[in-house]
């Protein structure tokens, strides 16, 4: 089975967000991690390979630092990596990125493409589904359980207030929700092996794409930071007094009860 996992390098969840002099998100000094939901996609890819054989390829977009994320995935057990490293990628939106990814993935055979259900940085949750559309294949979002038999997959996905079960034929895109599996940690041996695994770097020109093909559909006017919340008051007295006071404030002052 040929498995492709698309990953994104994101800011650590503990990162504080600041804007730089140009009003853009400042990445300086920020600790970078593999998007946590992509770890479930990596783990599922490795598990499928362990069960059915074949090869797992990880694909990412971004600057040279994204190589670290790919090396981590290789250390977990992925076979090879492809990084689309081109400064023009920064000037694209989800529409363009789906085209880039579709071209990059066309370089390798694939039966299933696994992606985290959301990236915790932009939180857009678009690329995986757009990619499936760009490749004219089905997708199942937010998957909690994946069973594969031959070229058929049965996926249980999270919906509001429950789950649904969907059958698809491969090739298909599956987006991973927390709960799908427990991602493994890279072993020391895995980290050593990862250094020798192939990592191919491609530019947009290598993919036959130009900036013109990818002009963004969305215009970002600006970024802003939330107004910091002010701590309010701590209610005095014993537990009974405080509970009574709180109920009164919620009704009379906040008017929420």
């Amino acid at each position, binding site marked *: 089975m040929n498995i492709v996992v698309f990953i994104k390098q994101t800011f650590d969840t503990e990162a504080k967000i600041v804007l730089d002099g140009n009003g853009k998100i400042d990445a300086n000094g920020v600790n970078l991690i593999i998007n946590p939901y992509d770890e479930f996609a990596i783990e599922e890819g490795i598990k499928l390979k362990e069960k059915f054989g074949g090869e797992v390829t990880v694909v990412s977009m971004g600057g040279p630092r994204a190589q670290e994320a790919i090396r981590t995935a290789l250390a977990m057990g992925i076979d090879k990596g492809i990084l689309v490293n081109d400064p023009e990628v920064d000037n694209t939106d989800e529409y363009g990125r789906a085209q880039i990814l579709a071209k990059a993935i066309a370089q390798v055979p694939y039966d299933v493409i696994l992606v985290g259900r959301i990236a*915790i940085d932009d*939180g857009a949750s678009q*690329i995986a589904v757009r990619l499936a559309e760009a490749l004219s294949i089905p997708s199942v*979002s937010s998957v909690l359980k994946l069973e594969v038999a031959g070229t058929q997959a049965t996926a249980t996905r999270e919906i509001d207030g429950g789950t649904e079960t*969907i059958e*698809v034929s491969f090739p298909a895109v599956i987006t991973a929700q927390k709960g799908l599996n427990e991602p493994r940690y890279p072993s020391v041996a895995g980290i050593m092996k990862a250094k020798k695994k192939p990592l191919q770097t491609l530019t947009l020109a290598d993919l036959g794409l130009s900036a013109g093909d990818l002009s963004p559909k969305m215009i970002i006017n*600006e970024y802003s930071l939330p107004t910091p919340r002010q701590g309010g*008051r701590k209610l005095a007295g014993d537990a009974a007094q405080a509970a009574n006071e709180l*109920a009164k404030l919620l009704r009379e002052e906040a008017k929420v009860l």
Partner: protein
Amino acid sequence: MAKGIMIIVEQRNLQIRKVSLELLSQARKIADATGEPVVAVVLGQGIDELAATVTASGADKVILIDDAKLAEYTTGAYTSVLNKLIRKEEPQAVLIGNTAVGKDLAPRLAQRLGVGLASDCTGMEADSNSFLTFKRPIYAGKAFAHLTSNVRPIMATIRPNTFPVAAPDAARQAEVVKEAAEIDAADLVAILKEVAIAASKRPELTEANIIVSGGRGMKGPENYNILEDLADVVGAAVGASRAAVDSGWKEHKFQVGQTGKTVAPTLYIACGISGAIQHLAGMGSSKFIVAINKDPEANIFNVADYGIVGDLFEVVPLLTEEFKKLVNE
């Protein structure tokens, strides 16, 4: 010439989702300000009776697409039908609730239409240049992006609880149109086998007006019943912090925070939650925050409107009694 604000109305078992009513209410305001009509689209089976609700909620035109293949949401069938409809109707904007359906449908539809999409927006305003501008949280609310598009239609998914639902106007009139469902065979490759909705008397976390949430201070899964008792008095949803989920006390679907759900209820009651940055990112835009924690230095007090320093196992049951008194008044 592109015309109208199209709302893709989501229904489940012939009940219109609250977020769809929120979108109709807000679209009505924009329509009144800009002169663009509100076009509501309802997909499903046996949906005729929903036209009245949608009209009363603000639609100028209601398009019903009634077909057995649309009874339950599937990515392929819904995309197939809506792609054709949008190309025919040429709306200025297409708005969808950021629900499990919206999150799956909107990117697929946007890609097929070759347009952009502003996902999970928490703000939308009329704009004289680009018609609409959107505000969306990034880094789970640690920052915001303000964006728009010159490509038509301009598409967005809007987070539940962003806009209030206006009172329905039973006197409103709308043009009601029925369209046939044209579904391409290529869009019917994924087959929906089963839908399992967990029976719960509590609202969805993302749609709830009030959330009672418990963290590490709950000490174990067996103690959540005190939060549930409190929640049930006021019809609240119950949430959990990452610490509680990672400890296996609650399922991930209850997790609030950067790696869980982002919520914006009117009232968020944090019990035994320290207030890690990734949790605050997920609930920091709640209108009012209450913190109950025995550690007076807990970070959660820095964002809480009202705080009680104390043992939650003592305070929460007392609060439940106080809430009961208010509700019974």
